């Protein structure tokens, strides 16, 4: 190489390069140091923070819903339990062509053509590997129809999930309530964490009031997920310690209901509108609580279509109304035994004083006629006959003599005008009218005055007085126990998942006091007279002929509207919904009562004809054995009819068979 005069100086350039190489080396070292500091910060200083983030990334907590507790009747008959339901689910990433698949499902009738857009939206809103329900509530027929063509629909499959099932369908629905989708209004009262993994909650009845006990405690499972949230099944060292907490199943409810009596009550009511409440008067157990028409609670658990809900909600027979707790009716003549007890206790009358009954009653100085019905007993009647044969004229006069204050004070201890405190919600208090109530309730001053006629009406359970079937069953129970008073209850025990049963003690209320044994005997014997024939026949003697036990009862006929002064009530000329309601209260066996019943049949006319046979059937079902003999009090339970044998209409809110 030639070193010329040119400016290029190789030696100097070599030095320059070496200098630059050293400089670069220093820069490299500096940059590497920066990098190491950064790595130190990440991996040493902030290790805990990032380790936690990494753990949170890969572990997802998935709730395991607890199995809901069963509901059993007093003899262990299953009233509500879990049942697998079938639904169609679709996994998008396994479906080759979503539109074609949906069209195919429409063609074989799995989804309705007007639902396609909605279903599509639901599918696309979820991750591709999620299994999205696209058709709930598949019938066995649907399952079979899809099963034969399953191969045409990759990515679509039938899945089962647990739903609430009620083997007896409509039977007892107003006591049980139902399980339905959690609604906005439920949210404030529940701990949403406890409901993760469930979409259902108890509504109405014991399903609602014992929700906490039935629900149980959710378990959870930690699952390993990848970045997409897809569960991965990588066992081995990548899997951290994954915790699983098993759920604790809800407690089983043991109800006081006797399914045999319950079924009898619902069958006896049939397609008529009405209610039956039967109590064990010795402890308040609700043996039967029926309100017709009913509805199938299973529908709500599996999801109700809009049309199905509308048909229930808008049905004129109001199948959703719990008539036993919320139906408020005039008590009719069922009030007479209670009035008699009050009058006897207050010495307004004596049992053997006779009153001339003419079929009409006028207040002194008034021309207003208080009419009695056409079967009204006439002539001289003592108190017993007036009760057994249900004389209105006798009780018009008696009420008028007693006065409203004494009547109201005497009725209150029997529970009129207040709730019984049954252990399900929704109960209404009825109405015990008083002058003070009337003054407060009406606007116009002339309406606020309590007039003597109001008292007279109260004597036969008409006018402003309103009671619920549950209240009257409670009254019948108090009468049967000569004043002892137990709070009605549906749940008598809780059974936890280990099988331990915790019995709930009956709650005794304040006893109706001050009534002498003689007066009890007088009135209770008069009630026995209602169902039998002696010197005269009681109003319900026909319905209790041939009975294997002695029943005590009282009929009632509640007027829905007031017949004009000079007109006669003519059932066939009155629109059905304006006809009288039929009442019957009873207890049996009279000498040692084990069941007290109240029956109401809406717009059915006389209590004896329409309501008493229902009470008889319920009491027979509870008290008699298979051969028709009275069972001893401690007899072993008998199985109720199987669900399939139910004769009650299975159509929600069906029209009554007879007008």
């Amino acid at each position, binding site marked *: 190489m030639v070193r010329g005069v040119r*400016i290029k100086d*190789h030696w100097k*350039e070599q030095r320059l390069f*070496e200098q630059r190489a050293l400089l*670069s080396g220093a820069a*490299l070292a500096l940059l590497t140091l920066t990098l190491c500091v950064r*790595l130190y910060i990440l991996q040493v200083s902030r290790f805990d923070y*990032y380790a936690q983030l990494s753990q949170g990334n890969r572990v997802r907590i998935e709730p395991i819903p607890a199995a809901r507790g069963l509901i059993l009747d007093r003899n262990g008959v299953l009233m509500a339990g879990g049942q697998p339901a079938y639904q169609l689910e679709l996994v998008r990433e396994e479906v080759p062509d979503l539109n074609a698949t949906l069209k195919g499902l429409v063609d074989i009738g799995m989804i309705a053509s007007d639902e396609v857009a909605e279903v599509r939206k639901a599918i696309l809103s979820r991750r591709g590997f999620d299994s999205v329900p696209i058709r709930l509530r598949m019938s066995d027929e649907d399952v079979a129809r899809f099963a034969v063509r399953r191969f045409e629909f990759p990515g679509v499959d039938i899945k089962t999930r647990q739903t609430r099932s009620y083997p007896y369908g409509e039977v007892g629905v107003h006591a049980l309530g139902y399980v339905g989708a959690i609604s906005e209004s439920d949210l404030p009262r529940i701990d949403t964490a406890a409901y993760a993994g469930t979409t259902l909650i108890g509504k109405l009845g014991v399903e609602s009031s014992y929700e906490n006990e039935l629900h149980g405690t959710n378990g959870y499972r930690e699952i390993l997920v990848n*970045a997409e949230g897809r569960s991965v099944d990588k066992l081995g060292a990548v899997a951290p310690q994954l915790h699983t907490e098993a759920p604790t199943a809800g407690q089983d409810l043991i109800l006081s209901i006797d399914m045999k009596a319950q079924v009898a009550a619902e069958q006896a009511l049939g397609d008529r509108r009405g209610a039956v409440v039967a109590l064990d008067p010795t402890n308040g157990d609700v043996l039967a609580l029926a309100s017709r028409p009913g509805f199938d609670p299973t529908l709500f658990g599996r999801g109700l279509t809009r049309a199905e809900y509308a048909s229930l909600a808008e049905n004129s027979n109001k199948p959703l109304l719990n008539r036993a707790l919320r139906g408020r009716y005039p008590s009719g003549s069922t009030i007479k035994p209670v009035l008699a007890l009050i009058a006897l206790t207050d010495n307004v009358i004596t049992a053997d004083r006779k009153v001339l009954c003419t079929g009409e009653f006028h207040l002194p100085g008034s021309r207003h006629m208080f009419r009695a019905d056409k079967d009204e007993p006439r002539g001289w009647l003592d108190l017993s006959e007036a009760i057994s044969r249900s004389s209105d004229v006798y009780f018009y006069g008696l009420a008028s003599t007693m006065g409203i204050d004494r009547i109201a004070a005497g009725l209150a201890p029997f529970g009129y005008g207040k709730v019984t405190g049954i252990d399900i919600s929704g109960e209404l208090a009825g109405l015990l009218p008083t002058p003070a109530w009337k003054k407060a309730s009406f606007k116009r001053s002339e309406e606020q005055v309590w007039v003597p006629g109001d008292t007279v009406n109260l004597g036969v359970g008409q006018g402003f007085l309103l009671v619920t079937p549950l209240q009257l069953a409670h009254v019948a129970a108090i009468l049967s126990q000569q004043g002892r008073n137990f709070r009605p209850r549906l749940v008598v025990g809780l059974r936890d998942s280990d099988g331990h049963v915790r019995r709930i003690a009956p709650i005794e209320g304040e006893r109706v006091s001050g009534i002498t044994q003689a007066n009890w005997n007088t009135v209770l014997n008069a009630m026995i007279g209602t169902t039998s024939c002696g010197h005269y026949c009681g109003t319900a003697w026909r319905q209790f002929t041939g009975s294997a036990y002695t029943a005590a009862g009282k009929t009632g006929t509640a007027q829905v509207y007031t017949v004009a002064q000079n007109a006669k009530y003519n059932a066939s000329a009155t629109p059905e919904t304006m006809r009288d309601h039929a009442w019957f209260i009873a207890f049996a066996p009279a000498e040692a009562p084990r069941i007290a019943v109240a029956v109401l049949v809406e717009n059915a006319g006389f209590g004896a004809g329409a309501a008493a046979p229902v009470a008889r059937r319920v009491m027979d079902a509870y008290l008699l054995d298979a051969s028709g003999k009275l069972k001893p009090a401690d007899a072993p339970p008998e199985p109720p009819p199987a669900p399939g044998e139910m004769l009650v209409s299975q159509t929600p809110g069906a029209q009554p068979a007879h007008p």
Partner: protein
Amino acid sequence: MLLALKLDGPLLVGLGLIAVYGLIVLYSASGQSLGTVIRQVLHLVMGAAAMLVLAQVNPNFLRRISPWLYAFGIFLLFVVAAIGIVGKGAQRWLDLGILRFQPSEIMKLAVPMMCAWYLQERPLPPSVPSLLLLALIILLPAGLVVIQPDLGTGALILMAGALVVVMAGLQLRIMAALLALGGLAGWLGWHFLHDYQKKRVLTFMDPQTDPLGAGYHIIQSTIAIGSGGVFGKGWMNGSQAQLEFLPERSTDFIFAVIGEEFGLFGLILLLILYGFVVGRALYLSAQTQDTFARLLAGSLALTFFVYVFINAGMVSGLLPVVGVPLPLVSYGGTSMVTLLAGFGILMSLYSHRKLIGS
């Protein structure tokens, strides 16, 4: 024998250790895919072949073809751009039927070769007119790559050329002036940007502001590195990598897999290996005997380090995310062949030094 093959023993050992380390990590990072590892071994074999061949080539030949290689590369970049325009889409690849390759990869070598060729006969440090011409030589291919768009490779080409100029003794005050000028241009340009463009730049600079978009990669990779701790979670036990939280886990973000599974210990070990290779390469370049060889060899050594630093800095959240693979470890054939070809050139320049100019 190594000398007969014109190879440098220490450098070969360093590269080999990095490659083996990389294969071990790749097996885990690919989700235990043996196929991926085998393909990567094939890439290594191809790269090693390129290195072996280039190590035998006379540096004078390399020197002579430098301008032609550069011109050929520029031509290909224009072809790619034209195809991109016709195909109405981003275009980096040239499909030759049997193989597809990125002309931008040629430029990673052709640009420093061209710069060294241009400077070899000129007095150093380079004069201002020379610098202007060098700027054109570097910015033309870099610009063509950036508009492909491939910002990462464009930046690397720029860096490879600039490092030649730096090694040629570019005055520190000119470097400072250039940096100041760049800063000023950026500051002025900022005010001409639309809001959405500003946002895009800010997200590029600080990905954490967009945790589901651009920030997702960097958040997951810092979690992976950080949760690895000092000794790591163990081979094939990195949950971030194995459960696919970490994107690009076997390619651009494989550095985070090492951090997660082998911890700080594993990363320092890797950096030591890289440091050894770069140090040896710098030493070799200082031993070469003429300007062309020195500048080219020095640039290749430094470029290698720049690759490592940009990738590690990006994965650990120090630098914005640009698509730069981790040398010899990231899965991929193109960068493997280019890098090993570069080392082949370096070995040729060193081992033929007595032939130069004689």
